[in-house]
């Protein structure tokens, strides 16, 4: 077995970025993601990479834009209020079709909120927090190991699709330590980027922009983007299914909430109640079909989130009225308790189903 090391989730992201070949990191401090910035400040220069503490979050995301435009791998990280500030930059990255990795270690909101873990930026992350018809790929780890592995994946997907990729996690996963196995592979090879603005020697100058004033040009770009998004929806949906084969109650949860849901499922299974979990790993693209298939044979679906019910809307779209969808959530930095999830599962499992329709 490979050697395990003990790390915080935040450090595991930083370590993964370096191993994925991140050329430049730009950050601005905010709790609970500061360990990423501190880690990169220490280790990027050691690896002859670029580290800059920007003067603001807006500056950091635009430095990412510049680096990506030059054909290099770039990352920035922040927590909820800081991620709000980056939204304009993310929209520009999407419009200019530039690869980038953005990490959101979510904290309680709205406003400056607090520093406790939260999942209330789901809408912002998955529905396009900036303006325009765009999507970013959104990855949601539920362990320190996945914080690491999904960061590697984020760089791969960003490069493959020339699109911003967000890692959507929270303060609890960022702060906690767990053992993990580090990525040993080489950074994915850098394809020749014919589009990059990296010195027009023996070629025509390239031009990277998201401004298209000539009539029809912007619509053409949007059609191209939507085609790309359709391809991502087809190929990149990822989810974990646990005990969903025979389940009568289906839980849907991601990140920290999924961890707690797993605890609740183990405890009700021991009492003979057949609960299962579908954990979206990609929040965009969302595993609508996988949920719909399982929902066909359950008494009810329970969504668990650290929000007022944001992913809940996507689960309802997936279930499409076939069975009732229930919700268990906490807001403002609160984390759902295993005991309250267990209670909800039990009440759903007692539901009588009408048969013969």
């Amino acid at each position: 077995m490979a050697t395990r090391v003990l790390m915080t989730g935040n450090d595991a992201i930083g370590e993964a970025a370096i191993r994925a070949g991140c050329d430049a990191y730009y950050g601005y401090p905010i709790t609970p993601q500061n360990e990423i910035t501190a880690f990169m400040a220490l280790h990027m220069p050691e690896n002859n990479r670029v580290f800059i503490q920007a003067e603001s979050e807006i500056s950091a995301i635009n430095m990412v834009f510049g680096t990506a435009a030059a054909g290099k791998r770039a990352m920035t990280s922040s927590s909820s209020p800081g991620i709000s500030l980056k939204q304009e930059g993310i929209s520009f990255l999407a419009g200019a079709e530039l690869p980038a990795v953005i990490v959101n270690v979510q904290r309680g909101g709205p406003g400056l909120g607090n520093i406790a873990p939260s999942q209330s930026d789901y809408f912002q992350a998955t529905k396009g927090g900036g303006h325009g018809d765009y999507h970013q790929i959104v990855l949601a780890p539920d362990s320190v190991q996945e914080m690491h592995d999904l960061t590697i994946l984020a760089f791969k997907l960003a490069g493959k699709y020339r699109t911003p990729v967000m890692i959507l996690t929270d303060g609890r996963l960022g702060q906690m330590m767990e053992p993990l196995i580090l990525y040993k592979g080489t950074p994915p090879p850098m394809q020749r980027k014919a589009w990059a603005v990296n010195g027009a020697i023996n070629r025509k100058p390239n031009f990277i922009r998201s401004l298209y004033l000539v009539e029809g040009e912007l619509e053409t770009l949007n059609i191209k983007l939507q085609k790309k998004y359709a391809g991502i929806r087809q190929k990149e949906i990822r989810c974990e299914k646990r005990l969903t084969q025979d389940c009568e109650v289906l839980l849907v949860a991601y990140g920290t909430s999924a961890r707690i849901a797993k605890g609740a499922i183990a405890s009700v299974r021991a009492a003979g109640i057949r609960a299962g979990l579908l954990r979206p790993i990609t929040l965009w693209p969302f595993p609508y079909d996988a949920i719909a298939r399982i929902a066909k044979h359950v008494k009810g679906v329970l969504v668990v989130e650290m929000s007022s019910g944001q992913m809940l809307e996507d689960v309802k779209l997936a279930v499409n009225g076939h069975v009732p969808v229930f919700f268990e959530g906490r807001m403002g930095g609160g984390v759902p308790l295993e005991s309250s999830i267990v209670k909800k599962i039990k009440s759903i499992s007692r539901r009588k189903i009408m048969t013969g329709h």
Partner: protein
Amino acid sequence: MLERILITGAGGQGVILLGRLLASSAVEHIPHITFFPSYGAEVRGGTSVCQVILSAKEIASPLSETFDSILVMNQISLENVIRQMKKNCLVLVNSSLCKIPPVSSKVVSVDATRLADNLGDTRVANFIMLGAYLAAKPVVTPLQAEKSIRELLAGKNMSLIELNIKAFRTGLES
């Protein structure tokens, strides 16, 4: 196995380091481990808390509501967690700075800060507590703990590493 440990004391007493050390000592042979620190707008002189969970099975949440062991380094922290001290819980108190709590738990008193002072550095009281804890509950071997101390303090001067090892052994034998 399942061992849920709560460690608390004053900021500066090495509570977080103690928890991290315990967690890293277990990496090689305990399948599931979580360490969770209190983080946030803490101030100098405030209370510091962390939780370590060591488990054969997957850990759902790194924050537990019940504990198998509680290590307390000072009186204010003790008062904050006294209600968690249930019957089946092992409680280790730094008796140099705490009164023995009137609880139904098994209480082990460790004169950690005084022993640390005798070794010449009040700051090593945390590793004396670690030694005493592992003597009472050998969840990891002394050898593993000492290896972790050396790894964690790698790069510091040798006399500091040896002092911490000595503190750990003092606790183990106390």
